[in-house]
Structure formats: C-alpha cells, structure tokens
C-alpha cells in the first residue's frame, strides 16, 4: 500500500519547489518534482532593446545572476556579430567576475544550504570564541531559523560538530568576501554591472587588482584548509550517501570560462570543457542539435466523436500540449551541474581537474565512479572551488595594462544569437531573435530545467526524480534522505520555471476530420 508524502516548501534552495513521493514499504517508488512560481521573464523581455537582456536576465535568479549575465552577453555578442572579437582583457575580466560567483556558490551551498541536514546546531558544549555565540543563542526559547527541523540523524561527535558549526559561521564571512571579489570588477553583487555586450565596461587598475587578490588569498585559505576537510568529514560519517541519489547517470555540460576568444561556444577551449559522459566515464563532444525538449503530462482530457460515428478518443492522454520545457539530449534526461562538469573534465582527462580528482579520491579511498551520488556532488563543488580560486590568480596576472575592454558593434535590425555557459548549478543557454532592433523572442534554458524536469512523453522521470526513486526513507515524518538528495542538486527554481502538469482543458465535443 503506497503512501503519498508531499514536501512543500523545500527550503534551503533557491525558489519554490515541491516534491511529491509515493512510498511503499519504506521505499520511494515514485517521485514528482514541481516548480511553483511563474514570473514570465521571457514575456517581459519581448519588444525591449536587446542590450537590456543582459541586465534583466540577471534577475531570473539572485543567487546565480552572473551565469545569466554571462550567457546573455555571449548570446548578444553572437547576435551582434562580435562573438570572436571580444578583447583579451575583457575575456579575462569576464572570467574573474563569473568564477567569483561559482566560488561563492560552492561555499554557500555546502555550508548554508546543505550542512544543516547533517550538523546539529544544538550539539555545542564549549564556550569558545568560535561557537560561544551559539551557546548563548540556544538559551533562547525561540530558536528560528535553526528549529524546527528534521530530526533523528545527526552523527557527528560533539568536537567535530563544533568545528563544523564554527566553520558554518566562518563561511558566512567567506561567501561575503567572495562576493566582494566579484564586486571589484562587477560593480556590485547581486546583480552586477561589469559585463556588457562586447566585453566589460570597467578598467582595472593596480588598486583594484590588489583588492581582488587579497580577497582571493583569504578565500583560498578557507577552501584549502577548512572546506575540503569538512567535506571529507561528511563523507566519513555518512558513507552510504556515496551510494544514494545517483540519478540518471548521464551528464552534460556547455562548459564555461573561455580560454580562447574565437569559435563556436560549444567548441572553443574552456576551463570547464563542454561535453557529455555517463557512468562509463567516456567523454563525447556535445552536439547542440541533439538537444530536444519533451512534452509533459496531461493537458487534455476529453471525448471526441466522429460525426455520426460512435468513435471516441482515449479519456486521458499522457502527452501534453505544445511548448514545453524539459530539455533532453538525444531524448534522454541528463544531469547538469558541478558533478557533470567534474566528470566530463575527468573523462576527457582535462587538467588540472583530472589530477585533483585522482588525488582527492585517493585521499578518501573512493573510486571516481562513486562520485555519481549525493556525496559526489558535494565533493565536486569543493574540487571546483579549489581549482577556480587558483585559476583566478593566473587570469588576474594575464590582464594587460593597455588594450581595449569592449568591442564596438552596431545594434542589428534583424539577427539571431545563442549563448552557452555554466551557472554553478549547471548548463545555461540563452537564445535571442531580434527584429526591428528589438527583442522579438528570447528563450532561456537553465540548469534546474534539466535537473528538475518532470517525466517526459515516454514516462521517463527527470534526473532529480530518478535520484529519489528507490531511496529508503526510515521515518516519513522526517524524510531526511529525500531532503539530502534534493539539496545535493542545489536546486534553483527561479531559473527552472514551472510546472507543466496541469489539466486545463476539458474537451466536451470534438469533430474528427
């Protein structure tokens, strides 16, 4: 006998997400994920000056606005004919701005979005400068936002718990510093203003560069000394999460951080390479033409009759209406995100990812294939953060004192363009159609649309749904296993946009021709 559980809202994500589970004998047999907010950004973009897309699309998401600024600018560069003429300095500064947000996101995600599922805020004994403030807080009657919470599976002994808690608090500062890094070249954060079509609008000077590097060093220390240690600790105490939450086991990345300024975005050399891979860890190049979108469940339900003939149509239809939204590659669901990027780079033996993955996995005595799991996603984020923070130093050093920062262009009468990049959560694509120098059509496919996508027309669940099915839930009142899996994907629903699983139309009479 199956029991239905609904978790709404899911917190510690971005946006509004609901998960519905059917549980039989303590195991999830079916899962449905739904985004619960529609704002209509693409409708709002229509008829505007194309250059405004860069700023407006950042407001799709306040946690990853930079990803949209990057993809949007690339899309506009393409449409304006300057895709291959972005000045070197601009390419480097764009990378610095964009990578700062990825680094920020790794820290935010591990500590402030994920860790409360494992770490017990109330398990604090020592009154030391790092956690003494928490001891005081625990004397309060009201303990929001840390209580209420899901109970029953906190495993860290008190000293380790305290260390994690003190790093949770330190990480609040570190992520702020990562945003300051971004603001050095991006103006402000969230919703920065440094990247424009054609390049960047800012000229760095030595004062700014030292401001940037000083913060890089601070964050780098934290990532190397604390962040990785804490991820290792998590893996040690929750090892079964190396087996849980594998998902669809197919991975896709558009790639990010251009290392060269010419060529098709999906083919040019990038720090995170583009491509696809799966559990066999063989790399294949990505062909943009194989991206399709699947239709969703039921839109119509109705009876149809031939004039004068008693024929009827099926009462309930599986297929949905047109204009849909679950992206599929070669018709299959693919996961995007830090795990996808890490595995794709690893499969391609791309350095420096390959060596760091090998060394980290050796450190924890786990095979690279086990990365396809909840823990694998957390490990991938930590690996990415470390690699990117080092890379920002090389990019900064490469900035030249003289040179252009923006390529000149004319706003075209009519054009089309596409931009591909990576948000922290995964592949993001922007497409534009310009007519009469205005946006005629603008489309965004964001990472959470890949990861949180519902069942397609063949009944195949999306990556998140697949990762939930088969999970053992020990306590239905506190479904921590489910929440840990969901959060490992770092859902960002403002980007993902909508549920498409509603019956709106009821057909009462229909003639068949």
């Amino acid at each position, binding site marked *: 006998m199956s029991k239905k559980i*609904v978790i*709404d*809202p*899911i*917190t*510690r994500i*971005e946006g509004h997400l*609901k998960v519905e589970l059917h549980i039989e004998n303590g195991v999830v047999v079916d899962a449905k994920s739904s985004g619960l907010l*529609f*704002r*209509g*950004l693409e409708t*709002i973009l229509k008829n*505007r*000056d194309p*250059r*405004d897309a860069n*700023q407006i699309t950042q*407001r799709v*998401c*306040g*946690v990853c*606005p930079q990803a949209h600024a990057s993809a949007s600018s690339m899309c506009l560069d393409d449409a304006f004919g300057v895709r291959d003429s972005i000045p070197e300095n601009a390419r480097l500064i764009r990378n610095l701005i964009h990578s700062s947000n990825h680094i920020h996101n790794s820290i935010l995600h591990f500590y*402030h979005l994920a860790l*409360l599922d494992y770490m017990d*805020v109330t398990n604090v004994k020592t009154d030391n400068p790092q956690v003494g403030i*928490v001891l*005081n*807080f625990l004397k*309060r009657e*009201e303990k*929001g*936002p*840390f209580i*209420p*919470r*899901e109970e029953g599976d906190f495993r860290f002994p008190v000293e380790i718990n305290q260390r994690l808690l003190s790093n949770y608090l330190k990480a*609040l*500062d570190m*992520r*702020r510093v990562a945003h*300051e890094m971004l*603001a050095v*070249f*991006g*103006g*402000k954060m*969230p*919703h920065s*203003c*440094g990247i*424009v079509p*054609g390049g*960047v*609008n800012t*000229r760095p000077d030595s004062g700014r560069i030292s*401001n940037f590097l000083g913060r890089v060093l601070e964050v780098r220390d934290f990532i190397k000394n604390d962040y990785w240690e804490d991820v290792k600790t998590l893996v040690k105490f929750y090892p079964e999460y190396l087996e849980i939450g594998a998902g669809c086991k197919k991975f896709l990345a558009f790639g990010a951080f251009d290392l060269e300024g010419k060529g098709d975005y999906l083919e040019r050399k990038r720090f995170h390479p583009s491509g696809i891979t799966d559990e066999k860890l063989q790399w294949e190049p990505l062909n943009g033409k194989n991206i399709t979108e699947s239709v969703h469940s039921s839109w119509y339900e109705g009876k149809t009759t031939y004039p004068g003939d008693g024929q009827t149509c099926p009462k309930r239809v599986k297929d949905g209406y047109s204009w849909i939204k679950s992206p599929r590659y070669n018709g299959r669901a693919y996961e995007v995100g830090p795990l996808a990027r890490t595995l794709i780079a690893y499969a391609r033996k791309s350095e420096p990812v390959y060596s760091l993955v090998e060394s980290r996995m050796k450190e924890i005595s786990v095979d690279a294939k086990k990365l396809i799991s909840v823990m694998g996603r957390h490990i991938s984020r930590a690996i990415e953060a470390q690699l990117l923070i080092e890379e920002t130093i090389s990019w900064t050093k490469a900035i030249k004192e003289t040179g252009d920062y*923006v390529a000149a262009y004319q706003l075209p009468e009519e054009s089309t363009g596409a931009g591909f990049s990576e948000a922290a959560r995964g592949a993001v694509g922007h497409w534009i159609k310009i007519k009469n120098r205005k946006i005629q059509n603008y489309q965004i496919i964001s990472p959470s649309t890949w990861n949180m996508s519902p069942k397609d027309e063949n009944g195949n669940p999306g990556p998140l749904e697949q990762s939930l099915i088969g999970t053992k839930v020990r306590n239905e009142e506190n479904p921590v296993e489910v*929440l840990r899996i969901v959060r490992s994907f770092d859902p960002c629903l*403002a980007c993902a946009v909508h549920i498409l699983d509603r019956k709106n139309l009821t057909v009462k009479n229909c003639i068949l021709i």
Partner: protein
Amino acid sequence: METKNYPVIWFQAAGCTGCSVSILNTSSFKVKHLLLDELVPGKYLSFQFQPTIMAGSGEKVINVLKRAVDAEKEKYILIVEGALPFGENGTYGTIGEDNGREIPMVERFESLARNCFAVVALGDCSSFGGIPGACPNPTGIKSVEQSLKDFNIDKPFINIPGCPPHPDWLIGTVTTLILGQMPLLDDLHRPKEFYGGVIHDNCPRRGDFDAGRFARSFGEEGCLYLLGCKGHFAYADCPTRQWNSGINWCIKNGAPCLACVEPDFPDGACPFYEKLKDFPKIG
C-alpha cells in the same frame, strides 16, 4: 537586563532571492550576529521563517507561519521579498498545501500581513512591482502597498526598494523599528536616511557632467549620461555608502545607474544604455 525578542517572518513571494543574498552580504553588522546575537543591547531578532537558510522543510515550516498569525499576533515584523502575483486566482505562485490544496502566496500574505506588527517591503519587487511587474505584467503583480490596500489591511509599512537593496538599508531600518520608532519616510514610504538624496547630486563624476565631459563608450572617463545613466532621478546613497563592504558601486565601475530603487524600474530606465531624451539642457 531582560532581553526582548522581535520575531521576524521573512516571506518570499515572486522574487529571485537576490534580496536575501544581498542581506547576507552585510558587513557593517555581520550576519552571524544578525542571526544569533542582539541587534541592539537588550533586543534581538529571531528569524523564525527565512526559506533560504532555515533548517526545516514542508509542513513543519508552514506551521511556523500559522503559529505566527496566532501566538505571535501583532508581534512579528513581516519582511516581504518578491512581488505578489494575483493573476489566475493567485496560482502563479503557491507555497505549501492545506488539505491537498496548493495555497497561493497572496493568500498567505494576506493572513500574515493582517496579523503582523509592521510590514517591510524588501526590494524593488515588493515595494513597487519590480521586474515581474514590468510590462506587460504577465502574472498580475501588485506591490505590497497596493495589496495591503486591496485587502483593506491597515498596518505600518516601509518600502526598502533596490534591485537588490543594500543590506544596510534593511538593517538600519529594522534597528530603528525595534528601538520603538518609525523612520522618517519619503512620499514613496522609503526611509529618507537612505533614499533622501539623488545619486546625481553626490556622484563623483558630477564634476565631469558640469564641465561637459561625457564618456562616449564603455571604459572611458567622464559622466555616463550619454551611456544611459539614470542617476539624476534615482534616490539612494550608493555614491557614499557604496556596495559590498564599500568596495565598489555601479557608476564607479563604469556602469550607468539603472535607477533600481525607483517605482518604475525597469521600464522607466529602459533602454538602459540609451540616454533619456527629455532631460533638459543636456546632450
């Protein structure tokens, strides 16, 4: 000394979470102290509901909202992030279920606003409609002010617009509130302390404007008016306070101001990179 608790319900509606992220960037008052310590001696905020960082999920946290309107009636500060979508009977945005029915955000907002001590509309979306309320407003967005009027709810409310708002603007305002005072507000219900001066008047590039030195393309020195700067009708203290711990801000970075604190953002400033044609005496 006895300490007093000020409960905070931080309600996220049709927004992008940028306001939450911005507040997390506070440096004049560190986040850990904001969450765990006293804001002023003897008084602290308790963030009972804040979806981006709170521990619990699902029904547990919906019960926190229900408890607030009951047991914490007239005591909690309601912070609203994101605009309120009224289109299609409110089904463009829902949060939580009651007896299997998905509850529209606007419905939750109504009960929370009716029973709170004061409402703070955080960000341009909740203050004025913002991005989701931009033409053609596909989801029937209304601002907090308009929603309170339509629901016939008479509560003190303050707008802290900005896309996103600066963390100091929120924290400074809330501090004033818990000290038992209402901040001095302008005609748009924005605290004059932060929104009293127009950016143009305090801009470091004002000298260039006055002397007729204009940047013609990005990266150049000079006033950014010709590149679309809308700083002459944006009321905010960005030039002096600056952003992200004072490290930079839009115009300093070479980017024209988008007037993201104003009621007609973004439409009033679009196209962002074209100068305003009807500004007298210029260009």
